[in-house]
């Protein structure tokens, strides 16, 4: 993975000094809170419902074991013993003190980490495929390009106060596992007919209040021009993006208002002066960065049938089927450690689990881990012969729930329990649904399904692109939940459609149950929920869900009031 050189170290060190002084000036009242807000946000520090929350950058989701151990240390020393992995492949700590944040950054810098641009109206952490470098369908490893973008965008002087946040995702494989269509810029590495590498360049995707799938603005951009072309897009956006209305400030609104053709024309006009300029990437520079991402020292192995070797062990077989992913190197596999155990907020991990995951990485996977945007952690390079041992250990630490891609592998934002923007709680809904559908045989029968829950329209929980999306809404001061179906991320990204009036929290598990019943009744063999919902449309689901009143069972939701 990438390692800091003297320049990266210097910039991060100087950043800490700058930020430490900003905190000092805020505490001394030399900065007003209004002046401090954009400064702290550009350092990932939010004010949440109860406390400050610090979001730490995990560039394109890639972590070294010592970095994971540092998270455990931060959780213990500065927080309440856990952290939350997010859909942006980052980690958040929910209970930090402002005064201590400069020290946290100092600790982070000792393992080449920081919180730069994890929030605020600037270019955010670039996200990517958690299986980068190991996926069998990979065209080219996207991480070096993400790293080049990381460096270029870090403290870019012209783009520190954009109209709104700006998110870039990059995918290097046939299958899009980076959800590029719902990012401000979405890049896919492609080869042209001559075999040269370039990018299919999308812009103007995003979720939030106005969910929009991005548009292709260039079919093939040679890799050398990655930075100059991105700069052209950023300059058009910085100058013309709306600033009068925060809800209309994202690049997707500009692109829609101008139309793809006009937007592209403006970008190309801006690019004329930048093309072939000094930011044009050189072979030497690209090769230098690529060299950091060389495959680890794999052994020469053959693929083996690990399930057959443990014949009769159904639990292990389930886990292999769900949580173990194919690998391009024979004899190896990628393993997903599930952070979706029933009863635990999706994406949460304790300090003890973080230390343990770091340990597993050292012993089984060349000391590296990845954070997925579904809020799990991946060990990408495990020898197949070690899978059984690894499984037993992971199980003992609550990290081997065999549910990856299934109903309980849901995405969920922190919602009303933490977030001051929430309209409704989301974690208790997630908990209640997990509890209700805990039965793994049933989940396996349902098959792949994405249940995504957000506590408000900001869509941090990706509800728009869930096969089933749940959105917390406020109705006359009480919390309700709007349900959509048919959303999808990936190559066939789509925004889900709302099925009808919203539900109370206590009705939600039954609503999900009814949606699943329609699917089970209507599906073709091997048809996923997503495909079935696409084929049938909303009508049959809507009809069945609303046909008879839904009792508010139980009186109290599982997990309610637990997360204060």
């Amino acid at each position, binding site marked *: 993975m990438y390692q800091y050189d003297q320049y990266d170290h210097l910039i991060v060190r100087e950043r800490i000094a*700058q930020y430490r002084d900003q905190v000092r000036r805020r505490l001394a009242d030399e900065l007003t809170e209004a002046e401090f807000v954009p400064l702290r946000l550009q350092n990932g520090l939010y004010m949440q419902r109860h406390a400050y929350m610090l979001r730490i950058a995990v560039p394109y989701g890639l972590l070294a074991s010592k970095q994971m151990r540092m998270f455990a240390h931060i959780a213990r020393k500065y927080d309440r013993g856990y952290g939350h992995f997010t859909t942006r492949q980052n980690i958040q700590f929910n209970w930090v003190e402002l005064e201590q944040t400069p020290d946290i950054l100092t600790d982070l810098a000792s393992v080449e980490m920081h919180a730069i641009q994890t929030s605020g109206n600037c270019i955010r952490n670039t996200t990517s495929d958690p299986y980068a470098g190991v996926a069998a369908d990979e065209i080219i490893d996207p991480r070096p390009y993400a790293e080049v973008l990381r*460096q270029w965008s870090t403290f870019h002087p012209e783009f520190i106060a954009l109209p709104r946040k700006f998110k870039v995702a990059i995918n290097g494989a046939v299958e899009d596992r980076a959800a590029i269509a719902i990012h401000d810029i979405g890049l896919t590495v492609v080869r042209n007919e001559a075999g040269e590498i370039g990018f299919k360049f999308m812009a103007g995707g995003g979720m939030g209040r106005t969910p929009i799938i991005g548009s292709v603005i260039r079919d093939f951009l040679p890799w050398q021009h990655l930075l100059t072309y991105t700069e052209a897009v950023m300059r058009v956006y910085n100058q013309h993006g709306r600033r009068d209305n925060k809800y209309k400030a994202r690049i997707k609104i500009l692109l829609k208002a101008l139309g793809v053709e006009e937007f592209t024309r403006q970008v190309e006009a801006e690019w004329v002066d930048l093309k072939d300029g000094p930011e044009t990437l050189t072979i030497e520079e690209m090769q230098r960065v690529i060299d950091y991402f*060389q*495959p680890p020292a794999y052994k020469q192995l053959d693929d083996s049938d690990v399930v057959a070797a443990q014949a009769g062990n159904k639990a292990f077989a389930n886990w292999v089927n769900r949580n173990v992913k194919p690998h391009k190197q024979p004899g190896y596999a990628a393993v997903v450690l599930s952070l979706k155990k029933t009863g635990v907020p999706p994406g949460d991990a304790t300090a003890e689990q973080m230390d343990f995951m770091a340990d597993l990485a050292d012993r089984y996977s060349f000391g590296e881990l990845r954070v997925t945007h579904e809020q799990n952690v991946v060990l990408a390079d495990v020898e197949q012969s070690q899978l059984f041992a690894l499984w037993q250990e992971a199980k003992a630490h609550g990290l081997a729930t065999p549910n990856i891609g299934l109903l309980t592998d849901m995405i969920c934002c922190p919602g009303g329990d933490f977030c001051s923007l929430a309209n409704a709680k989301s974690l208790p809904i997630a908990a209640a649904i997990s509890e209700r559908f805990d039965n793994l045989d049933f989940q396996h029968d349902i098959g792949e399904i994405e249940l995504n829950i957000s506590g408000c329209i900001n869509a941090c929980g990706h509800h728009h692109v869930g096969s089933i999306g749940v959105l917390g809404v406020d109705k006359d001061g009480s919390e309700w939940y709007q349900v959509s179906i048919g959303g999808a991320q990936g190559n066939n990204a789509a925004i889900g459609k709302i099925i009808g009036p919203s539900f109370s929290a206590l009705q939600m598990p039954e609503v999900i149950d009814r949606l699943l019943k329609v699917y089970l009744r209507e599906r073709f063999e091997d048809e996923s929920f997503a495909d079935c919902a696409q084929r049938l449309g909303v009508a049959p689901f809507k009809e069945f869900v609303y046909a008879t009143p839904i009792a508010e069972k139980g009186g109290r939701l599982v997990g309610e009031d637990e997360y204060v």
Partner: protein
Amino acid sequence: MNMSKNLIIKGREVVEDDWQVLRLAEPVDGAPVHDPATVSVPAGKFIVPLSLWLVQREVLSARTAAGEIAVWIASDERPETLKDLLDQFPLIAVDFPKFTDGRGYSIAYNLRTRLGWTGELRAVGDVLRDQLFSMQRVGFDAYSVRSDRDVHDALKGLSDFSETYQASVDQKVPLFRRHARPLPAEVNNDGAGI
């Protein structure tokens, strides 16, 4: 009109300055904005709104020629408007109505790189210490720090960083072209190509 001298940052020093910024008052409760066509520019050295200068350029021509009139560009205006007029001004200012409005950075960049402005480029408006480093990078060389803030303190903002990754106006060459950045010895580098 207050004619006392202001303290501003020029280059990397705090200096006295006798320019005043003329602003057409914002509309309040339906009262009309001052009309750029009729407002009269008081005697003295004034940085006037670009819109005012454009409509009054005849009226102001003698004073402009005498070097006592400059213009400021609002964040929603295009610097290209000044394309063939640049040599008329002793300085050009760019307004930051709020420090969170980043359009001025792109305006400055375009003035320097596209339009070739080499004279003084001054940031005015909501200009604060923590923005100065970026402002200097996109081509500003003078800063009128918000009057309730200590200009000497703000000066420190210009030295927050000693290295930067990307190219801009102050540094035309990105880090990767400026310095050899050899891989640490432990990185295995005998692998794949582009």
